[in-house]
């Protein structure tokens, strides 16, 4: 299948999925007991004021009508305005997307850089000392609640030891942010030669990235180990070993044959870490998309919640398409389908 046809087919398949996501989030936020009117009206509001706000937001209309209007707007790229801040949800999401992507990139990137080699090494000597130690460590990484881990790291590395900067966001409040180019303070700081901002941004990235790396490395280690053990037991590898190929070459073969499933797993990890990201952003006051989504959910800002979930769904789809393409590049025999 040609590349263009592949993309077209993917887009076609994604459409009903997205409509489903829009419908489900739309319904869930409305029947979930969230009601922004009380918060908007304020403590002195009379019933008449409540009703007028409800009417202004269109909440007095039947649900199907509200959904129809919303869907029509979404198709035109308009995610609506936040009911609390009155800002366009699209603008808010655009501003925050890069902030979260930066954290996700470093966190999962480092998690994978640690997780894959460790998983492979453990697989080459199953039940060896290294394997046993990493098994315990990855179990720990699995079971530690992210929220708690983040707080403990702040307490130890910032409060007790003073090694890390305070959890006050993406950079020191006393440093002025670099001129906006990509939206990442680190990259923008480097591009504009604003070393102070770049340094401050890098140092503030350390703790949340370590948190995210720990949380993402644990499953990657476990999965890579399982995949590699399976590959080691495969006919190809056993044949290579039987032919007396040197250990180094066998390992290369294992690496090559494990690459596709490992990569696919890392892809699912990226999309699965969204909830974890929200908690990490919350504790570190990161101000990204995760924090935005969490705030929107807590405060019952329907349009923002809907926009957030829709963008996450789109993001997942995008990640899988990219993985498909990379897999195709690594393994040209694989069909793009």
């Amino acid at each position, binding site marked *: 299948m040609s590349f263009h046809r592949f993309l077209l087919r993917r887009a076609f398949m994604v459409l009903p999925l997205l409509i489903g996501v829009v419908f489900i989030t739309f319904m869930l936020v409305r029947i979930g007991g969230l*009601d922004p009117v009380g918060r908007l009206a*304020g*403590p002195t*509001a009379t019933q008449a004021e409540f009703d007028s706000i409800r009417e202004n937001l269109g909440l007095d209309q039947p649900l199907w009508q509200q959904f129809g209007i919303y869907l029509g707007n979404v198709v035109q790229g308009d995610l609506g305005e936040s009911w609390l801040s*009155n800002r366009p949800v699209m603008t808010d999401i655009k501003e925050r997307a890069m902030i979260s992507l930066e954290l996700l990139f470093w966190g999962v990137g480092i998690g994978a850089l640690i997780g894959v080699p460790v998983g492979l090494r453990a697989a080459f000597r199953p039940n060896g000392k290294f394997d046993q130690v990493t098994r315990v460590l990855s179990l720990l990484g699995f079971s530690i609640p992210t929220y708690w881990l983040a*707080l403990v790291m702040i307490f130890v590395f*910032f409060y007790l030891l003073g090694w890390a900067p305070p959890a*006050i966001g993406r950079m020191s409040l006393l440093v002025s942010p670099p001129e906006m180019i990509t939206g990442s303070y680190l990259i923008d700081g480097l591009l504009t030669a604003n070393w102070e901002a770049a340094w401050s941004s890098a140092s503030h990235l350390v703790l949340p990235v370590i948190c995210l790396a720990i949380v993402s490395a644990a499953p990657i280690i476990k999965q890579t180990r399982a995949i590699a053990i399976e590959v080691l037991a495969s006919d190809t590898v056993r044949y290579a070993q039987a032919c007396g190929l040197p250990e180094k070459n066998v390992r290369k073969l294992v690496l090559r044959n494990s690459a596709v499933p490992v990569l696919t797993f890392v892809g699912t990890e990226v999309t699965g870490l969204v909830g974890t990201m929200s908690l990490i952003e919350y*504790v570190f*006051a990161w101000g990204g998309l995760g924090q935005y989504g969490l705030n929107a959910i807590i405060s019952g800002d329907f349009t923002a919640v809907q926009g957030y979930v829709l963008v996450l769904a789109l993001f997942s789809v995008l990640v899988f398409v990219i993985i498909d393409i990379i897999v195709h590049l690594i393994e040209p025999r694989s069909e793009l389908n």
Partner: protein
Amino acid sequence: MKLTGKTLVLSAALALAMSVMSGAAKAETMILASPQAPEGFDGDALKAHTQNVVTQVYENLVAYGTMEVDGITTLNPDDLKPHLAESWTVSEDGKTWVFKLREGVLSPFGNELTADDVEWGWAKSFEQKRTGNFIARVSNVTGVKAISKYEVEFTLSAPSAIFLNALTLYVPGIYDTTEVKKHATEADPWALEWMQSNTAGFGAYHLESLRADDQAVFVANPNYFGGQPYYDRVIYKEIPSEASRVTLLKAGQVQWIDRPSINQVVNMQADPNVKVQRATSRSVAAARMNPSCEVFSDTRVRQAFNYAVDKDALNTAVFAGQADIARSIVSPIIAGSNQEHFAYDFDPEKAKALLAEAGYPDGIAEPVELLYSDAFWHQEPVAIQVADMLKKVGINAVPTRITSSEMRAKAAPAEQSMCFFTWEDGPIVLDAVYSMFLMTHSTGVSNRAKYNNPDLDALIDQGREELDSEKRMALMDEAQKLWAEDAPWILVAYPATFEAMAPNVSGWVYYPDEHERWRELRGD
């Protein structure tokens, strides 16, 4: 250069002047960690954390003086001083007030305060029909008109004892209309869109920059008529996690955190790197009974509920012993509060006896739902503990959770459909008549539970128009007594307000709107 006595004196004077100037120009930044960054800057349409910041930007014609009580500076509700106004006169019938504005008051944009600014702000509130309109209604204001550049006239429908108190609030606001009008359009004549992310007041601070859901930066108004504040920059930073906020304060990274929870207060009180200050609050936490519901229609039942609840135990269990036990609906920080009339000390036997008298010799077996929500952190623990205490005298109270917006809707003046629920309310005007009107009058917006006693209404209505302070206090004493006999609420506690700050921060004064004023704070 030859050193003469004259040059020495001159250079010494110059050095002194320079050191004074550099002292004045020293940049002091305060970082304030809050659960949320402000979502709007229009005092008429309060959004999350709007109130915390508009109080720094918009100042009004009148201000409270302060007084020292037990070494703590508090507002003196009886001392109303000119602020943006210089003086005022009132007509004999008490219905027409003319305020003479202070001349030369400048906004950060350099525009001078005029009577038109005052008129415009009130017109905006009347039009929006939100918070400012409510303030106008309770203080009987029907019209505001500029009669000269520096004179503005207020027309009242009837004399009002709380009118001057209302003029201490941030809303109806006084805007720099020269600036605001630049951003008004035909579709948006009050520039409400612009006010979502901008400010233009005559107060000590104004908004410099805003990053939504992240931070708002305020800088001192260089033209402020009251002199330059100590902090020339305040960063209002969103730190959503309370544990992070506390750690940052303990580590000296922020100078102030917004409204800590009671658990964190206890934790921080033991830490020398944090200063925790406390004030008795104006508001009261209570479990309210709706006399229009059958079970609560008998006064003896309501009294029995009060005798069945051990308030001391509640203070210890829920408020970590840090609250003040409530013995009047009017907080003791308000002149005229009488803490004697509400004498329902814990007495389960008396409760049982009263229930028996009211026709419930075996208690109330039919479940009585005690509703609570998460609008105030203490609602849930209070509801659970109160229900437990009521069970001990044979009342089958069942704590039941509903959402805060459902509770607000059910408590709205037009509905008031809940029979029994926990809540907190308090006046933003420190006045006994206002407090009683707000929470006990049949038309008070914070009545919320259909309490209606025509005799009490009459006393309050009389108090609202009585300008003689002594007579008003006597009326309110009578009113508190009457209300205590009716016992429509199980009064629990004045929950206390806590502020946590860096140890070197001083100057905090408790305001009835529960927001500190940054211009009063110092960090030296």
